[in-house]
């Protein structure tokens, strides 16, 4: 193959891509070789970290489940309906994505000091509670799930739902019987993305739910707690465990045919 200008251009782009991937590979390799697998296992078997792992799995699943429940109707509305102010609403739905995480936590903390927030806490206490962890994960994860569901519905033709309306469906029945079965892969992807996002959530949880061991400590909190006491080996072991979970999620999302 002769190296003409076009080939040179592709080669340069490939080198840039490879360089970026190599950088990431080096980062992960350096982290992975910092300590031994035996010490990882030892760390991961400690009661505090096992509790944080269990708590992370439960809270992430709950937050992702709630995020999906919200994302389906909102994504469907944004995809299928034209209305005045839609572009503003679209931008507003992305606010949790662009807000600094600590600010999200602070907003939650302040909201639950207001009259409405206090009234809610009479029924379900959130501040510095386990439910607060789920809420902090949910508020950010939902924005990602909504984006994914909207993309899914955008890619699905609306015509079968139109036909369902002529066959006797209400709009809700058309969503339930036609759009949702067709969007099931997108729903799996939205759940996985929301789950992965919740797993990595740290700032809002720290501010709103705190970092109390064996109570509101999830895996990112563990990394921070271990780092703050200088236990780098434990922080590395938990981080690698989280990398493994993130890779599993990525594989699951790719298997649905959707993109993160």
């Amino acid at each position, binding site marked *: 193959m002769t190296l003409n200008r076009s080939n040179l251009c592709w080669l340069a782009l490939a080198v840039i891509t490879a360089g970026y991937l190599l950088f990431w590979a080096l980062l992960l390799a350096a982290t992975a070789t910092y300590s031994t697998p035996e010490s990882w296992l030892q760390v991961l078997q400690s009661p505090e970290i096992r509790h944080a792992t269990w708590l992370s799995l439960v809270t992430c699943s709950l937050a992702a489940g709630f995020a999906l429940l919200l994302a389906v109707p909102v994504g469907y509305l944004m995809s299928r309906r034209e209305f005045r102010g839609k572009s503003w609403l679209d931008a507003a739905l992305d606010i949790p994505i662009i807000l600094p995480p600590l600010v999200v936590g602070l907003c939650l903390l302040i909201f639950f000091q207001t009259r409405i927030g206090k009234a809610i806490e009479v029924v379900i206490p959130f501040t510095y509670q386990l439910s607060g962890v789920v809420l902090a994960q949910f508020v950010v994860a939902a924005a990602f799930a909504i984006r994914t569901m909207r993309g899914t519905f955008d890619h699905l033709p609306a015509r079968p739902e139109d036909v369902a309306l*002529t066959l006797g469906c209400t709009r809700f029945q058309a969503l339930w019987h036609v759009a949702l*079965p067709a969007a099931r892969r997108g729903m799996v992807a939205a759940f996985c993305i929301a789950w992965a996002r919740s797993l990595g959530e740290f700032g809002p949880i720290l501010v709103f739910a705190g970092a109390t061991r064996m109570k509101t400590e999830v895996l990112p909190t563990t990394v921070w707690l271990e780092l703050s006491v200088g236990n780098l080996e434990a922080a590395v072991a938990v981080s690698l465990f989280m990398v493994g979970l993130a890779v599993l999620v990525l594989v699951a999302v790719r298997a649905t045919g959707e993109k993160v």
Partner: protein
Amino acid sequence: MIQLDQLSWQVAGHTVLDQVSVTIPANTYAVLMGSTGCGKTSLLEILCGLRKPTSGRVLLDGVDVTKLEPRERGIGYLPQDLALFPGLSVREQIAFAPKLRGVLPEELDQRVNRLAEQLGIVPLLDRRIEKLSGGEKQRVALARALAAQPKLLLLDEPLSALDEGMRGEAVGMLKRVQQEHALTVLHVTHSSAEAAALGQLHLKLAEGRLVPPATQGANCTR
């Protein structure tokens, strides 16, 4: 009987349909022709309630249905892409409307089997739609629409995806279905041969307006 009374539809300041008025008698096979983008599909969508007209009325058997939901109009609609429901078997597609209306399982089976026999798709009943040919999909979509027992059937270029050989066969099938089910049909097509073979009433849309019909038995005004 379908009556369109001074029906107009505008989108983004552009007039797509301009004061269209026409009467299509009951049990008539009407064929609508017109160049691409002249508003034929929009007209069908307004008829079945998927779009709201800017002004004018739609009357079915003398009843004003302009403000009714699509499900309340008793109209069967076959869009150009057929819009079969992904992931469902042929049997589930045909059973969709009767099941929604709470038809009992025994009657549901009878209705599905009767339509499948009528349209020659019995061997396909348990297949998924993804594995069907264009002609088979078209028959399934027709059976799905007929299962709702509509009085009026709207067909948007239903034969455009078929090859020449299958098209002749499909024309015969549509004629037979219209007569057996005593349907009023409005069939959109680009093919003059198809229009000649099927149409009892010929309509033409040009620049959003209906050109007067070429046959007797209908009233059409601009």
